[in-house]
């Protein structure tokens, strides 16, 4: 029964052997066989590893747990979901020297935020995105690595250790202007649910599963596996890149030869194998794509896209590995500045700031100039000459001419002074005119000619026109005479437009 448990656990998690069928019954001291001691050690290591795995999601769980303590209501948002989507966005855009910008993350989160809170303002959206990024960067802890204490078993005794890890980091881009986010190995592992697994083993397993699924036409599953595989390829590349960078900075030739060259060899072997297998798989899938149609064609295209992403990452890493040794030698050959190793760097808070605050005022004052020059760079004098000064003083005055836009101004008509409001007499005159004139069917143009002949005041004429227009289409209860269009244009007595027929019926 215990043997079955061991197999299931091992198979489900791809972990190393962690338990023995009867280790609890045998005291190590009574057994000359060394294997139980080995198994106990393996158990201790596995438990320790899994404890660390439980710690990694803590910053994400914490931001969700503490959201109710913030000044604003965030109950409609699940920060676990938002943090994982942010990680997905960052990982997807990671490559050598690149990553996701704040805008990328915001674009990925915006639809989710708006789905939860449709009336969300842009400021509030930015606030939530900041909370997500701050949690992943450990902004509250000033971007130091997250640290958690945990207990491990060591030979039956309990020992407390510190576990340090990070999830996200922000980097300056090569152009010096931009900033991008990159996920750590722990974050990638957390996202792909492969915490505690060996990256190389996971890559080999991915390749086998992907081939199996692709060969059996399980394209939906294959797309998911390929997506996971390309993220893991990035995790592996990041892991190797970081190891090389650390080694490169610690420019000890002996350490490089003894520790780094074997890593390069092993990684080159692994990555060459991966490239070869991916190329084979891609070749087969491309042939299938030529014959595919409809839904299968779309799925195969998506699958090939995922495989190509993974290939790109692996090729970049391959190139880096091939040139790593050469770059290191060049650096030595040029006798570059020896940079201090991490072990020699002081803790600025504990070793400098605290003693500084504790020091007597006189000493602190005397140290100001030295500290300023150490920390704040150099003074750059503004170099000028007497000639330059004279030419500046004698230069003609600068005539500021406002810039003119190169546009064609639109045609406009100046507004005339608005006409005065109608007087009571005007209403009476126009009503009298309608009563006397509108004895049958008359066109508006004809009425205006009559009005002119009867010397109707201009205000009354305007009222005749306006009342005619008001009655056109007026509600039955307010209609005083009937108005209908003629379908002809008129221009009479200073008025122009579509002519109307007016009648009392």
């Amino acid at each position, binding site marked *: 029964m215990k043997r079955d448990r061991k197999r299931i656990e091992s198979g489900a998690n791809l972990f190393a052997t962690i338990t023995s069928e009867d280790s609890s019954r045998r005291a190590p001291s009574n057994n000359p066989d060394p294997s139980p001691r080995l198994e106990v050690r393996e158990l201790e290591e596995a438990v320790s590893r899994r404890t660390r795995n439980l710690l990694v999601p803590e910053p994400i769980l914490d931001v969700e747990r503490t959201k109710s303590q913030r000044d604003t209501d965030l109950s409609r948002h699940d920060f676990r979901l938002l943090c994982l989507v942010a990680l997905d966005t960052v990982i997807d855009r990671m490559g050598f020297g690149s990553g996701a910008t704040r805008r990328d993350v915001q674009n990925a989160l915006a639809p989710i935020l708006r789905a939860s809170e449709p009336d969300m303002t842009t400021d509030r959206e930015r606030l939530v995105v900041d909370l997500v990024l701050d949690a992943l960067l450990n*902004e509250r802890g*000033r*971007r*130091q*690595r997250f640290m958690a204490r945990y207990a491990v078993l060591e030979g039956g005794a309990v020992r407390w250790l510190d576990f*340090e890890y990070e999830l996200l*980091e*922000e*980097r*300056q*881009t*090569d*152009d*010096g*202007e931009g*900033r991008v986010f990159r996920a750590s190995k722990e974050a990638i592992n957390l996202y792909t649910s492969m915490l505690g697994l060996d990256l190389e083993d996971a890559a080999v397993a991915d390749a086998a599963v992907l081939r199996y699924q692709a060969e059996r036409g399980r394209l939906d599953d294959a797309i998911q596996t390929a997506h996971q595989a390309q993220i893991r390829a990035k995790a592996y590349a990041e892991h190797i890149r970081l190891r090389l*960078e650390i080694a490169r900075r610690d420019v000890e030739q002996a350490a490089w030869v003894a520790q780094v060259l074997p890593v390069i060899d092993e990684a080159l072997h692994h990555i060459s194998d991966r490239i070869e297998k991916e190329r084979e798989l891609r070749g087969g899938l491309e042939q299938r794509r030529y014959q595919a149609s409809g839904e299968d064609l779309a799925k195969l295209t998506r699958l090939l896209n995922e495989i190509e992403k993974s290939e790109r990452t692996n090729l970049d890493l391959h190139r880096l590995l091939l040139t790593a040794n050469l770059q290191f030698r060049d650096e030595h050959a*040029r006798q*570059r*500045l020896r*940079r*201090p190793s*991490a*072990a*020699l*760097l*002081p*803790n*600025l*808070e*504990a*070793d*400098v*700031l*605290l*003693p*500084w*605050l*504790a*020091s*007597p*005022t*006189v000493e*602190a*004052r005397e*140290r*100001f*100039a*030295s*500290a*300023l*020059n*150490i*920390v*704040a*760079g*150099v*003074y*750059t*004098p503004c170099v000028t000459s007497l000639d330059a000064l004279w030419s500046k003083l004698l230069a003609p005055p600068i005539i500021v001419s406002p810039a003119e836009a190169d546009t064609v101004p639109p045609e406009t008509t100046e507004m005339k002074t608005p006409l005065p409001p109608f007087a009571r007499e005007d209403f009476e005159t126009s009503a009298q005119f309608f009563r006397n004139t509108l004895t049958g069917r008359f066109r508006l143009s004809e009425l205006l000619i009559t009005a002119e002949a009867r010397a109707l005041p201009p205000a009354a004429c305007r009222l005749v026109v306006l009342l005619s227009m008001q009655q056109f289409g007026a509600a039955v209860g307010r209609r005083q005479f009937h108005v209908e269009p003629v379908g002809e244009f008129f221009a009479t007595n200073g008025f122009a437009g579509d002519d109307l027929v007016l009648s009392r019926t």
Partner: protein
Amino acid sequence: MSGLATIAHDAGKLIAFALRPRQTPWTAREYADLLRRYEEDSQFRSIVDGVREGMGLRIVDATRNGLFLAAAEGSPFRLAADDYKQNMTAQERVLHGVIQIAIAAFSFPKADVLDQEDNVAPAHVTPVKLAEYIRQFAEAEATRSPAETNSDDSAERRAWREALSRALTMETSGGKESARSLTGMCRHALDFLEGQGLMRVVDEENAVYQGTTAYRIRLKYHAAHELLTLMRGAPTSGANP
């Protein structure tokens, strides 16, 4: 110009680029080319090194990120207190010294944070956060057990704390930030570093700053050790180029 004069001219150009705080090889192609030449051409490198040594400048770092220099004692490129802020009182000098150290410690509190890759961006810092950070440390220092403090300098320590508390009490006078308040001084310090290309403004409205790659490089390869040496009372490398 002769061959040597041309090389000297280019050497001067490289040093001029290095002295302009906002110039980077990423934005100036000529700077990047001269840096590459400095790495690859030994004759050019010796002329650059000769000129900058003559000017009292020492190299902090020379990589694709730029040529970073520090001014030795007596160099015309050394910052004077008035370059930083004019007419500072003795008390202000003390506080501004602390603020500069606090900015460095806030951005890179521990050795492992400082040791991250050069282009990793440090934490965001605001004048308010920084003033609060200093206040917390100063309070922690003030509450140290009397046994730990040296009775000889207790008067000095009192003066220190009084200067800090005076600056802190100015924070809310009239509801407006005073230039002599701790927050106001922190803002000046961050603005100065921004002018030196060592900080960038992330959010102008909320006064959010962040150390640049140049700031990390300066602290990592030069300032951190020098400050430690300064604290221990030993002569710093600023004494000689």
